[in-house]
């Protein structure tokens, strides 16, 4: 992975960490962007699921589900920097380990709205 196009190359490793947590969902979703510093998934019906983007001072994890239901943040509320966005600056942030469960909650949200099938179906 090159970090040439990133806004802040120092965040490349952190970005990759978060993208790796999103990777399992590539099997059941559409990967619409996979560029240096920018990764994006959509449900098979075309709804935005996740976007992970390197910003100047943080890595943003944007979820449409959070935009629509703020309760999905759960333990990650402390990392929240906007209506749809979690922001991370540090690879050692303990909240990073909460991301997989958060992604699952967001997935369940889309399933509950009939925007995609449950992966177990």
């Amino acid at each position, binding site marked *: 992975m090159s970090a040439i*196009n990133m*806004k802040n190359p120092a965040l490349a490793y952190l970005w990759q960490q978060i993208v790796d947590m999103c990777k399992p969902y590539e099997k059941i979703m559409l990967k619409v962007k996979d560029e240096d510093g920018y990764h*994006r998934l959509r449900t098979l*019906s*075309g*709804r*935005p699921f996740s*976007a992970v*983007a390197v*910003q*100047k001072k943080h890595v*943003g994890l*944007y979820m*449409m589900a959070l*935009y*629509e239901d*703020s309760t999905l943040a759960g333990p990650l509320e402390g990392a929240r*920097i*906007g*209506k*749809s*966005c979690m922001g991370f600056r540090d690879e050692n942030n303990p909240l990073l380990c909460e991301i997989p469960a958060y992604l699952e909650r967001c997935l369940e949200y889309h399933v509950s709205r*009939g925007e995609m099938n449950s992966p177990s179906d």
Partner: protein
Amino acid sequence: MHLGKVMGIYMEVLLIDCNTLQELLSLTAIELIEKLESSTLARPIADPEMEREFDIDAGAEILDFLESGELESPEGMLLLARWSAIGEWGAWEGRTFIYIETLLGREVAHVDELYEPEIWLELIENISTFTKKEYSNAVVMDWMQRREKLGESLDEKLDPHILPTMEAHQRNAEGLFHVLQMAKKEGISLLLGREHMPARKWMLDGIKLKDVEN
């Protein structure tokens, strides 16, 4: 008439009051017609910093449409959404590259990207890094740099359009700043589309109108 109307395709962004739209979607066509004809159909309070279609025009468009169209169609949904708007913002699409790239901090490769919901989630978050004035100034600076790169003059004596164009960019940037701030509020949805775009392709919080369940 907007200047953009004679310059090219116009991007439109509407802030939708979700409660109002939900209520409208629960009505039958007959109920809707009755309420419109008796002027008892509630519309959300307009945002004083924004423009929107006049009540009488928005209502007449719905009534005209219902003479032959179906309320549950994307076209019907778009009209109901317009009725439910607290305000709308628009700009010539060519200019919106400047407004959007300034906020994203990167280039937008294709015009279709301007309408991608993920981009708008980023815009809504990134606007927090600017004050209204800072954003407006950043847009004008970007515009001036682009003109310089193209070898265009920035001397108002040589080009009488310089000043009004700069003012239009400032006005548009300040309007978009407000839209993005308002889009953070609970109960407000963002409806995104462009001139001549079929209703089914307009996006309400990232859902195409053809996919929105009534």
